[in-house]
Protein backbone atom coordinates (compact mmCIF):
# COMPACT_ATOMS: atom_id res chain seq x y z
CA UNK A 1 0.00 0.00 0.00
CA UNK A 2 2.85 2.35 0.88
CA UNK A 3 4.41 1.78 -2.53
CA UNK A 4 1.12 2.51 -4.22
CA UNK A 5 0.74 5.74 -2.24
CA UNK A 6 4.28 6.76 -3.21
CA UNK A 7 3.42 6.23 -6.86
CA UNK A 8 0.28 8.28 -6.41
CA UNK A 9 2.19 11.06 -4.67
CA UNK A 10 4.74 11.13 -7.48
CA UNK A 11 2.00 11.48 -10.11
CA UNK A 12 0.20 14.13 -8.10
CA UNK A 13 3.39 16.14 -7.68
CA UNK A 14 3.86 16.07 -11.43
CA UNK A 15 0.37 17.45 -12.04
CA UNK A 16 0.53 20.05 -9.27
CA UNK A 17 1.77 22.86 -11.49
CA UNK A 18 -0.71 22.43 -14.38
CA UNK A 19 -3.50 21.91 -11.84
CA UNK A 20 -2.64 25.18 -10.09
CA UNK A 21 -2.32 26.97 -13.41
CA UNK A 22 -5.69 25.78 -14.66
CA UNK A 23 -7.38 26.58 -11.36
CA UNK A 24 -5.97 30.09 -11.52
CA UNK A 25 -7.06 30.58 -15.14
CA UNK A 26 -10.58 29.38 -14.28
CA UNK A 27 -10.93 31.78 -11.35
CA UNK A 28 -9.46 34.70 -13.30
CA UNK A 29 -11.84 34.03 -16.20
CA UNK A 30 -14.81 34.00 -13.83
CA UNK A 31 -13.66 37.14 -12.04
CA UNK A 32 -13.13 38.95 -15.34
CA UNK A 33 -16.55 37.84 -16.66
CA UNK A 34 -18.21 38.99 -13.45
CA UNK A 35 -16.44 42.34 -13.77
CA UNK A 36 -17.51 42.79 -17.40
CA UNK A 37 -21.13 41.87 -16.62
CA UNK A 38 -21.15 44.26 -13.66
CA UNK A 39 -20.02 47.13 -15.83
CA UNK A 40 -22.56 46.26 -18.50
CA UNK A 41 -19.89 45.36 -21.03
CA UNK A 42 -21.00 41.76 -21.47
CA UNK A 43 -24.48 40.23 -21.41
CA UNK A 44 -25.49 37.92 -18.58
CA UNK A 45 -25.15 34.92 -20.91
CA UNK A 46 -21.40 35.38 -20.55
CA UNK A 47 -21.72 34.05 -16.98
CA UNK A 48 -22.97 30.72 -18.31
CA UNK A 49 -20.16 30.66 -20.85
CA UNK A 50 -17.52 31.24 -18.21
CA UNK A 51 -18.94 28.39 -16.10
CA UNK A 52 -19.35 26.00 -19.02
CA UNK A 53 -16.02 26.75 -20.71
CA UNK A 54 -13.80 25.18 -18.01
CA UNK A 55 -16.17 22.21 -17.83
CA UNK A 56 -15.91 21.67 -21.60
CA UNK A 57 -12.15 22.07 -21.55
CA UNK A 58 -11.73 19.73 -18.55
CA UNK A 59 -12.29 16.37 -20.37
CA UNK A 60 -9.93 17.42 -23.17
CA UNK A 61 -7.30 18.42 -20.68
CA UNK A 62 -7.64 15.19 -18.70
CA UNK A 63 -7.47 13.14 -21.90
CA UNK A 64 -4.21 14.85 -22.72
CA UNK A 65 -3.01 14.54 -19.14
CA UNK A 66 -3.66 10.78 -19.02
CA UNK A 67 -1.45 10.41 -22.09
CA UNK A 68 1.12 12.85 -20.76
CA UNK A 69 1.65 11.12 -17.39
CA UNK A 70 2.85 8.00 -19.21
CA UNK A 71 4.81 9.92 -21.82
CA UNK A 72 6.74 11.73 -19.07
CA UNK A 73 7.96 8.41 -17.69
CA UNK A 74 9.68 7.71 -20.98
CA UNK A 75 10.84 11.24 -21.63
CA UNK A 76 12.47 11.54 -18.21
CA UNK A 77 13.65 7.93 -18.18
CA UNK A 78 11.81 7.23 -14.92
CA UNK A 79 10.18 4.25 -16.59
CA UNK A 80 13.35 2.26 -15.81
CA UNK A 81 12.83 2.86 -12.10
CA UNK A 82 9.16 2.04 -12.39
CA UNK A 83 9.84 -1.30 -14.01
CA UNK A 84 12.61 -2.17 -11.57
CA UNK A 85 10.46 -1.43 -8.53
CA UNK A 86 8.66 -4.41 -7.01
CA UNK A 87 5.31 -2.88 -7.92
CA UNK A 88 2.81 -4.71 -10.12
CA UNK A 89 1.84 -3.00 -13.39
CA UNK A 90 -1.81 -2.61 -12.36
CA UNK A 91 -0.74 -0.49 -9.37
CA UNK A 92 1.23 1.83 -11.66
CA UNK A 93 -1.76 2.22 -13.97
CA UNK A 94 -4.20 2.59 -11.07
CA UNK A 95 -2.03 5.24 -9.40
CA UNK A 96 -2.07 7.27 -12.61
CA UNK A 97 -5.83 6.84 -12.91
CA UNK A 98 -6.33 7.93 -9.31
CA UNK A 99 -4.12 10.98 -9.86
CA UNK A 100 -6.28 11.97 -12.84
CA UNK A 101 -9.40 11.47 -10.71
CA UNK A 102 -7.98 13.76 -8.04
CA UNK A 103 -7.07 16.35 -10.66
CA UNK A 104 -10.59 16.16 -12.07
CA UNK A 105 -12.07 16.57 -8.58
CA UNK A 106 -9.90 19.58 -7.77
CA UNK A 107 -10.61 21.37 -11.05
CA UNK A 108 -14.33 20.63 -10.76
CA UNK A 109 -14.26 21.90 -7.16
CA UNK A 110 -12.50 25.11 -8.24
CA UNK A 111 -15.16 25.67 -10.93
CA UNK A 112 -17.92 25.12 -8.35
CA UNK A 113 -16.30 27.46 -5.83
CA UNK A 114 -15.74 30.09 -8.52
CA UNK A 115 -19.40 29.85 -9.56
CA UNK A 116 -20.56 30.31 -5.97
CA UNK A 117 -18.08 33.10 -5.40
CA UNK A 118 -18.67 35.18 -8.52
CA UNK A 119 -22.17 34.21 -9.64
CA UNK A 120 -23.98 33.71 -6.34
CA UNK A 121 -27.23 35.42 -7.47
CA UNK A 122 -27.35 33.13 -10.48
CA UNK A 123 -26.96 30.08 -8.25
CA UNK A 124 -29.56 31.45 -5.86
CA UNK A 125 -32.09 31.93 -8.66
CA UNK A 126 -31.32 28.50 -10.07
CA UNK A 127 -31.85 26.94 -6.65
CA UNK A 128 -35.37 28.35 -6.58
CA UNK A 129 -36.50 25.99 -9.31
CA UNK A 130 -34.82 22.96 -7.79
CA UNK A 131 -36.76 21.01 -5.18
CA UNK A 132 -34.17 21.44 -2.43
CA UNK A 133 -30.50 21.98 -1.68
CA UNK A 134 -30.22 18.34 -0.61
CA UNK A 135 -31.68 17.24 -3.96
CA UNK A 136 -29.18 19.41 -5.83
CA UNK A 137 -26.22 18.14 -3.78
CA UNK A 138 -27.31 14.53 -4.10
CA UNK A 139 -27.72 14.71 -7.87
CA UNK A 140 -24.53 16.72 -8.18
CA UNK A 141 -22.69 13.94 -6.36
CA UNK A 142 -24.25 11.29 -8.60
CA UNK A 143 -23.25 13.20 -11.74
CA UNK A 144 -19.76 13.60 -10.33
CA UNK A 145 -19.50 9.83 -9.79
CA UNK A 146 -20.74 9.17 -13.33
CA UNK A 147 -18.09 11.62 -14.52
CA UNK A 148 -15.44 9.65 -12.61
CA UNK A 149 -16.57 6.40 -14.26
CA UNK A 150 -16.51 7.92 -17.75
CA UNK A 151 -13.13 9.47 -17.09
CA UNK A 152 -11.78 6.13 -15.86
CA UNK A 153 -12.81 4.40 -19.08
CA UNK A 154 -11.17 7.11 -21.20
CA UNK A 155 -7.95 6.93 -19.16
CA UNK A 156 -7.89 3.13 -19.48
CA UNK A 157 -8.23 3.39 -23.28
CA UNK A 158 -5.45 5.98 -23.45
CA UNK A 159 -3.14 3.87 -21.26
CA UNK A 160 -3.63 0.85 -23.52
CA UNK A 161 -3.05 2.96 -26.62
CA UNK A 162 0.17 4.35 -25.19
CA UNK A 163 1.55 1.00 -24.05
CA UNK A 164 0.71 -0.64 -27.40
CA UNK A 165 2.36 2.24 -29.24
CA UNK A 166 5.52 1.62 -27.24
CA UNK A 167 5.53 -1.95 -28.54
CA UNK A 168 5.67 -0.72 -32.11
CA UNK A 169 9.02 0.31 -33.48
CA UNK A 170 7.83 3.19 -35.66
CA UNK A 171 4.92 5.58 -36.14
CA UNK A 172 4.08 5.25 -32.46
CA UNK A 173 1.73 8.23 -32.52
CA UNK A 174 -0.38 6.76 -35.30
CA UNK A 175 -0.40 3.35 -33.61
CA UNK A 176 -1.62 5.01 -30.40
CA UNK A 177 -4.48 6.81 -32.15
CA UNK A 178 -5.46 3.71 -34.11
CA UNK A 179 -5.40 1.57 -30.93
CA UNK A 180 -7.61 4.14 -29.25
CA UNK A 181 -10.18 3.86 -32.06
CA UNK A 182 -9.98 0.07 -32.22
CA UNK A 183 -10.28 -0.46 -28.46
CA UNK A 184 -13.36 1.76 -28.37
CA UNK A 185 -14.92 -0.19 -31.23
CA UNK A 186 -13.95 -3.52 -29.67
CA UNK A 187 -15.55 -2.94 -26.27
CA UNK A 188 -18.68 -1.64 -27.95
CA UNK A 189 -18.93 -4.83 -30.02
CA UNK A 190 -18.26 -6.86 -26.90
CA UNK A 191 -21.24 -5.16 -25.27
CA UNK A 192 -23.46 -6.11 -28.22
CA UNK A 193 -22.22 -9.70 -28.32
CA UNK A 194 -22.62 -10.28 -24.58
CA UNK A 195 -25.95 -8.46 -24.34
CA UNK A 196 -28.08 -11.66 -24.44
CA UNK A 197 -26.22 -12.96 -21.38
CA UNK A 198 -27.31 -9.96 -19.32
CA UNK A 199 -30.90 -9.56 -20.47
CA UNK A 200 -32.03 -10.83 -17.09
CA UNK A 201 -30.82 -7.57 -15.54
CA UNK A 202 -33.58 -5.11 -14.68
CA UNK A 203 -33.51 -1.65 -16.18
CA UNK A 204 -32.03 0.96 -13.88
CA UNK A 205 -34.71 3.58 -13.12
CA UNK A 206 -32.65 6.77 -13.42
CA UNK A 207 -35.69 8.92 -12.64
CA UNK A 208 -35.85 7.27 -9.22
CA UNK A 209 -32.11 7.40 -8.67
CA UNK A 210 -32.05 11.12 -9.45
CA UNK A 211 -35.48 11.68 -7.84
CA UNK A 212 -36.69 13.46 -10.97
CA UNK A 213 -40.29 13.27 -9.78
CA UNK A 214 -39.41 15.97 -7.25
CA UNK A 215 -38.48 18.22 -10.16
CA UNK A 216 -41.38 17.39 -12.41
CA UNK A 217 -43.91 14.59 -12.48
CA UNK A 218 -44.03 12.30 -15.47
CA UNK A 219 -40.32 12.05 -16.28
CA UNK A 220 -39.28 8.48 -16.98
CA UNK A 221 -35.63 7.70 -17.61
CA UNK A 222 -34.50 4.09 -17.67
CA UNK A 223 -31.12 2.65 -18.41
CA UNK A 224 -30.91 -0.73 -20.05
CA UNK A 225 -27.78 -2.16 -18.47
CA UNK A 226 -27.65 -5.38 -20.53
CA UNK A 227 -25.69 -3.93 -23.49
CA UNK A 228 -23.41 -2.01 -21.11
CA UNK A 229 -22.22 -4.98 -19.07
CA UNK A 230 -20.10 -6.45 -21.85
CA UNK A 231 -18.59 -3.02 -22.50
CA UNK A 232 -17.68 -2.59 -18.86
CA UNK A 233 -16.17 -6.05 -18.69
CA UNK A 234 -14.20 -5.22 -21.83
CA UNK A 235 -12.86 -2.02 -20.25
CA UNK A 236 -11.85 -3.97 -17.13
CA UNK A 237 -10.09 -6.52 -19.34
CA UNK A 238 -8.24 -3.68 -21.08
CA UNK A 239 -7.00 -2.41 -17.70
CA UNK A 240 -5.69 -5.89 -16.86
CA UNK A 241 -4.14 -6.29 -20.32
CA UNK A 242 -2.45 -2.89 -20.20
CA UNK A 243 -1.01 -3.61 -16.75
CA UNK A 244 0.27 -6.99 -17.91
CA UNK A 245 1.86 -5.62 -21.08
CA UNK A 246 3.37 -2.69 -19.22
CA UNK A 247 4.86 -4.97 -16.56
CA UNK A 248 6.27 -7.61 -18.90
CA UNK A 249 6.68 -6.53 -22.47
CA UNK A 250 6.86 -2.81 -22.84
CA UNK A 251 9.86 -1.34 -24.68
CA UNK A 252 11.63 1.20 -22.50
CA UNK A 253 13.79 2.47 -25.31
CA UNK A 254 10.88 3.10 -27.64
Amino acid at each position, binding site marked *: MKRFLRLLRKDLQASLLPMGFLSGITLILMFFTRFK*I*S*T*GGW*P*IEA*AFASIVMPLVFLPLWLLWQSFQTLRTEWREDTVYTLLVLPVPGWQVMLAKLLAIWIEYTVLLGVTAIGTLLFFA*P*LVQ*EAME*ILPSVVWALRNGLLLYLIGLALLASVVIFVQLAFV*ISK*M*AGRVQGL*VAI*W*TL*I*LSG*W*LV*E*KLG*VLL*EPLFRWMP*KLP*LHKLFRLDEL*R*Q*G*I*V*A*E*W*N*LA*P*EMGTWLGILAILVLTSY*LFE*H*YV*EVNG
Partner: protein
Amino acid sequence: MKIRRMTLAVLALLTLLFVVDVRYFGGDQSSTGQPSIHFNIGPNFSDAAFEKKQTFIQSQDEFTTLAIKGQQGVIHLRSTDDDEIRVISTIGADSQDVLDRLDVRESISESELGYELTGGKSEGQSLQEAEVSFVVEVPAGMEVSVEQHFGQVKIKSFVGFLNLEASFSDVDVWGLEGTATIQNRFGVVDLRQIAGPITLHDSFSTSTIGLAAIDGGYDFDIEVTNGSLKHNAGFKVDIGENRVGARGQWGEGVHPVVIRSNFSTVTVNLDK
Protein backbone atom coordinates in the same frame (compact mmCIF):
# COMPACT_ATOMS: atom_id res chain seq x y z
CA MET B 1 9.79 -10.21 -28.88
CA LYS B 2 7.18 -12.89 -29.48
CA ILE B 3 4.53 -11.08 -27.48
CA ARG B 4 5.23 -7.87 -29.36
CA ARG B 5 4.67 -9.61 -32.66
CA MET B 6 1.52 -11.20 -31.31
CA THR B 7 0.22 -7.85 -30.12
CA LEU B 8 0.84 -6.25 -33.48
CA ALA B 9 -0.77 -9.25 -35.20
CA VAL B 10 -3.85 -8.89 -32.99
CA LEU B 11 -3.93 -5.19 -33.83
CA ALA B 12 -3.82 -6.04 -37.53
CA LEU B 13 -6.58 -8.65 -37.14
CA LEU B 14 -8.78 -6.21 -35.24
CA THR B 15 -8.18 -3.63 -37.94
CA LEU B 16 -9.41 -6.12 -40.51
CA LEU B 17 -12.51 -6.92 -38.43
CA PHE B 18 -13.14 -3.22 -37.91
CA VAL B 19 -12.99 -2.54 -41.63
CA VAL B 20 -15.30 -5.49 -42.37
CA ASP B 21 -17.74 -4.31 -39.69
CA VAL B 22 -17.84 -0.74 -40.97
CA ARG B 23 -17.90 -1.82 -44.64
CA TYR B 24 -20.52 -4.57 -44.46
CA PHE B 25 -22.50 -3.98 -41.27
CA GLY B 26 -22.42 -0.20 -41.18
CA GLY B 27 -20.77 -0.28 -37.75
CA ASP B 28 -24.13 -0.67 -35.98
CA GLN B 29 -23.61 0.18 -32.36
CA SER B 30 -26.31 -1.98 -30.86
CA SER B 31 -28.00 -5.22 -31.67
CA THR B 32 -31.44 -3.72 -31.21
CA GLY B 33 -30.73 -0.30 -32.67
CA GLN B 34 -32.22 1.17 -29.49
CA PRO B 35 -30.34 3.56 -27.21
CA SER B 36 -29.44 2.20 -23.79
CA ILE B 37 -31.10 5.10 -22.01
CA HIS B 38 -34.78 5.61 -22.61
CA PHE B 39 -35.97 9.08 -21.68
CA ASN B 40 -39.54 10.29 -21.76
CA ILE B 41 -41.32 13.30 -20.39
CA GLY B 42 -44.99 12.80 -19.93
CA PRO B 43 -47.84 12.95 -19.86
CA ASN B 44 -48.03 14.68 -23.21
CA PHE B 45 -51.39 16.06 -24.21
CA SER B 46 -51.27 14.89 -27.79
CA ASP B 47 -50.27 11.44 -26.65
CA ALA B 48 -52.80 11.21 -23.82
CA ALA B 49 -54.59 7.92 -24.24
CA PHE B 50 -57.78 9.13 -22.57
CA GLU B 51 -59.52 12.47 -22.68
CA LYS B 52 -62.52 14.01 -21.03
CA LYS B 53 -64.21 17.18 -22.19
CA GLN B 54 -66.40 19.45 -20.07
CA THR B 55 -68.25 22.56 -21.15
CA PHE B 56 -69.29 25.37 -18.80
CA ILE B 57 -71.44 28.32 -19.77
CA GLN B 58 -72.27 31.12 -17.36
CA SER B 59 -73.93 34.46 -17.84
CA GLN B 60 -71.59 37.28 -16.93
CA ASP B 61 -74.28 39.07 -14.86
CA GLU B 62 -72.78 38.90 -11.37
CA PHE B 63 -69.22 37.96 -12.26
CA THR B 64 -66.42 40.46 -12.69
CA THR B 65 -63.46 38.07 -12.55
CA LEU B 66 -62.68 34.73 -14.14
CA ALA B 67 -59.82 32.57 -12.78
CA ILE B 68 -58.34 29.75 -14.86
CA LYS B 69 -55.73 27.39 -13.52
CA GLY B 70 -54.05 25.10 -16.02
CA GLN B 71 -51.18 22.65 -16.07
CA GLN B 72 -49.20 21.16 -18.92
CA GLY B 73 -51.86 21.80 -21.54
CA VAL B 74 -52.79 24.81 -23.63
CA ILE B 75 -54.98 27.70 -22.51
CA HIS B 76 -56.68 29.60 -25.31
CA LEU B 77 -58.32 32.87 -24.32
CA ARG B 78 -60.19 35.48 -26.31
CA SER B 79 -62.80 38.15 -25.79
CA THR B 80 -66.23 38.18 -27.40
CA ASP B 81 -69.09 40.65 -27.71
CA ASP B 82 -71.47 38.24 -25.93
CA ASP B 83 -72.37 38.41 -22.28
CA GLU B 84 -71.63 34.74 -21.71
CA ILE B 85 -68.55 33.13 -20.26
CA ARG B 86 -67.76 29.91 -22.10
CA VAL B 87 -65.13 27.50 -20.83
CA ILE B 88 -64.37 24.22 -22.55
CA SER B 89 -61.92 22.06 -20.66
CA THR B 90 -60.16 18.93 -21.86
CA ILE B 91 -58.47 16.65 -19.38
CA GLY B 92 -55.89 14.23 -20.71
CA ALA B 93 -54.49 11.23 -18.87
CA ASP B 94 -52.67 8.02 -19.65
CA SER B 95 -55.25 5.75 -18.04
CA GLN B 96 -59.03 5.69 -17.71
CA ASP B 97 -58.66 5.03 -14.00
CA VAL B 98 -56.80 8.30 -13.50
CA LEU B 99 -59.20 10.15 -15.78
CA ASP B 100 -62.23 8.90 -13.84
CA ARG B 101 -60.93 10.52 -10.69
CA LEU B 102 -60.42 13.89 -12.32
CA ASP B 103 -62.74 16.74 -13.01
CA VAL B 104 -62.56 20.42 -13.74
CA ARG B 105 -64.28 22.10 -10.84
CA GLU B 106 -66.26 25.26 -11.21
CA SER B 107 -66.06 27.50 -8.18
CA ILE B 108 -67.94 30.66 -7.39
CA SER B 109 -66.71 33.07 -4.79
CA GLU B 110 -68.65 36.32 -4.63
CA SER B 111 -67.98 37.91 -8.01
CA GLU B 112 -65.25 35.49 -9.07
CA LEU B 113 -65.77 32.46 -11.20
CA GLY B 114 -63.00 29.87 -11.22
CA TYR B 115 -62.03 26.68 -13.03
CA GLU B 116 -59.34 24.26 -12.05
CA LEU B 117 -58.50 20.59 -12.15
CA THR B 118 -59.44 18.54 -9.11
CA GLY B 119 -58.88 14.89 -8.39
CA GLY B 120 -61.08 13.80 -5.52
CA LYS B 121 -59.58 11.74 -2.72
CA SER B 122 -56.24 10.88 -4.24
CA GLU B 123 -55.86 14.38 -5.57
CA GLY B 124 -52.11 14.86 -5.36
CA GLN B 125 -51.22 11.77 -7.33
CA SER B 126 -53.87 12.05 -10.02
CA LEU B 127 -53.27 15.71 -10.72
CA GLN B 128 -49.64 15.05 -11.41
CA GLU B 129 -50.49 12.32 -13.88
CA ALA B 130 -52.82 14.49 -15.94
CA GLU B 131 -52.99 17.69 -17.87
CA VAL B 132 -55.74 20.09 -18.62
CA SER B 133 -56.37 22.46 -21.49
CA PHE B 134 -58.93 25.24 -21.69
CA VAL B 135 -60.64 27.15 -24.47
CA VAL B 136 -62.04 30.26 -22.87
CA GLU B 137 -64.26 32.98 -24.27
CA VAL B 138 -65.16 35.92 -22.08
CA PRO B 139 -67.15 39.10 -22.56
CA ALA B 140 -65.01 42.09 -23.43
CA GLY B 141 -63.97 44.17 -20.44
CA MET B 142 -63.82 41.34 -17.95
CA GLU B 143 -60.94 40.63 -15.60
CA VAL B 144 -59.29 37.27 -16.24
CA SER B 145 -56.63 35.60 -14.10
CA VAL B 146 -54.68 32.80 -15.74
CA GLU B 147 -52.20 30.49 -14.01
CA GLN B 148 -50.23 28.09 -16.16
CA HIS B 149 -47.29 25.78 -15.52
CA PHE B 150 -45.43 23.60 -18.03
CA GLY B 151 -47.70 24.46 -20.92
CA GLN B 152 -48.77 27.17 -23.30
CA VAL B 153 -50.97 30.22 -23.10
CA LYS B 154 -52.41 31.66 -26.29
CA ILE B 155 -54.39 34.86 -26.00
CA LYS B 156 -55.93 36.54 -29.02
CA SER B 157 -57.94 39.73 -29.33
CA PHE B 158 -58.44 40.18 -25.62
CA VAL B 159 -60.17 43.23 -24.21
CA GLY B 160 -60.12 43.67 -20.44
CA PHE B 161 -57.85 43.11 -17.48
CA LEU B 162 -55.40 40.25 -17.68
CA ASN B 163 -53.47 38.77 -14.75
CA LEU B 164 -51.19 36.03 -15.92
CA GLU B 165 -48.83 33.88 -13.88
CA ALA B 166 -46.77 31.38 -15.83
CA SER B 167 -43.74 29.19 -15.33
CA PHE B 168 -41.94 26.88 -17.75
CA SER B 169 -44.48 27.96 -20.34
CA ASP B 170 -44.75 29.67 -23.68
CA VAL B 171 -47.00 32.72 -23.61
CA ASP B 172 -48.30 34.24 -26.84
CA VAL B 173 -50.53 37.28 -26.75
CA TRP B 174 -51.73 38.76 -30.02
CA GLY B 175 -53.84 41.83 -29.50
CA LEU B 176 -54.69 43.10 -26.03
CA GLU B 177 -56.67 46.19 -25.20
CA GLY B 178 -56.69 46.89 -21.51
CA THR B 179 -54.40 46.24 -18.60
CA ALA B 180 -51.99 43.35 -18.35
CA THR B 181 -50.05 42.11 -15.33
CA ILE B 182 -47.75 39.24 -16.17
CA GLN B 183 -45.45 37.18 -14.01
CA ASN B 184 -43.27 34.72 -15.82
CA ARG B 185 -40.42 32.40 -14.86
CA PHE B 186 -38.39 30.14 -17.09
CA GLY B 187 -40.44 30.72 -20.20
CA VAL B 188 -40.88 32.67 -23.36
CA VAL B 189 -43.26 35.60 -23.47
CA ASP B 190 -44.21 37.05 -26.82
CA LEU B 191 -46.62 39.98 -26.58
CA ARG B 192 -47.81 41.66 -29.79
CA GLN B 193 -50.10 44.61 -30.35
CA ILE B 194 -50.48 45.48 -26.71
CA ALA B 195 -52.53 48.62 -26.19
CA GLY B 196 -52.59 49.74 -22.59
CA PRO B 197 -50.70 49.65 -19.32
CA ILE B 198 -48.57 46.60 -18.70
CA THR B 199 -46.59 45.26 -15.75
CA LEU B 200 -44.17 42.43 -16.40
CA HIS B 201 -42.12 40.56 -13.82
CA ASP B 202 -39.96 37.87 -15.27
CA SER B 203 -36.89 35.80 -14.51
CA PHE B 204 -34.82 33.41 -16.60
CA SER B 205 -36.97 34.20 -19.60
CA THR B 206 -37.02 35.72 -23.01
CA SER B 207 -39.65 38.42 -23.24
CA THR B 208 -40.74 40.48 -26.20
CA ILE B 209 -43.22 43.27 -25.64
CA GLY B 210 -44.76 44.76 -28.75
CA LEU B 211 -46.67 47.94 -27.92
CA ALA B 212 -49.21 49.48 -30.23
CA ALA B 213 -49.08 53.23 -30.75
CA ILE B 214 -52.08 54.52 -28.79
CA ASP B 215 -53.44 57.82 -27.61
CA GLY B 216 -51.94 58.86 -24.31
CA GLY B 217 -48.64 57.14 -25.00
CA TYR B 218 -46.53 55.19 -22.54
CA ASP B 219 -44.52 55.85 -19.41
CA PHE B 220 -41.62 53.42 -19.24
CA ASP B 221 -40.15 52.19 -15.96
CA ILE B 222 -37.85 49.31 -16.71
CA GLU B 223 -35.23 47.55 -14.63
CA VAL B 224 -33.36 44.53 -15.87
CA THR B 225 -30.98 42.85 -13.44
CA ASN B 226 -28.35 40.49 -14.78
CA GLY B 227 -29.90 40.53 -18.21
CA SER B 228 -30.15 42.51 -21.39
CA LEU B 229 -32.57 45.10 -22.73
CA LYS B 230 -33.25 45.97 -26.35
CA HIS B 231 -35.77 48.55 -27.51
CA ASN B 232 -36.82 50.98 -30.18
CA ALA B 233 -38.94 53.15 -27.92
CA GLY B 234 -36.44 55.97 -27.61
CA PHE B 235 -36.11 56.01 -23.81
CA LYS B 236 -32.79 56.52 -22.09
CA VAL B 237 -31.00 53.48 -20.79
CA ASP B 238 -28.96 53.69 -17.63
CA ILE B 239 -26.39 50.91 -17.30
CA GLY B 240 -25.20 50.18 -13.77
CA GLU B 241 -23.60 47.33 -11.90
CA ASN B 242 -25.42 44.13 -12.87
CA ARG B 243 -28.42 46.12 -14.00
CA VAL B 244 -29.91 48.06 -16.85
CA GLY B 245 -32.54 50.66 -16.02
CA ALA B 246 -34.70 52.73 -18.30
CA ARG B 247 -37.09 55.59 -17.69
CA GLY B 248 -38.83 57.67 -20.25
CA GLN B 249 -42.02 58.55 -21.99
CA TRP B 250 -43.51 58.17 -25.38
CA GLY B 251 -46.34 60.53 -26.22
CA GLU B 252 -48.10 61.90 -23.16
CA GLY B 253 -46.88 59.04 -20.98
CA VAL B 254 -50.31 58.09 -19.68
CA HIS B 255 -50.03 54.30 -19.72
CA PRO B 256 -47.35 52.86 -17.45
CA VAL B 257 -45.10 50.12 -18.77
CA VAL B 258 -43.36 48.58 -15.77
CA ILE B 259 -40.86 45.81 -16.31
CA ARG B 260 -38.83 44.10 -13.61
CA SER B 261 -36.61 41.40 -14.98
CA ASN B 262 -33.92 39.08 -13.64
CA PHE B 263 -31.56 36.98 -15.73
CA SER B 264 -33.67 37.57 -18.82
CA THR B 265 -33.57 39.08 -22.24
CA VAL B 266 -36.16 41.80 -22.67
CA THR B 267 -37.08 43.43 -25.96
CA VAL B 268 -39.48 46.35 -26.13
CA ASN B 269 -40.83 47.16 -29.58
CA LEU B 270 -43.03 50.15 -30.12
CA ASP B 271 -45.08 50.32 -33.32
CA LYS B 272 -44.66 54.03 -33.93
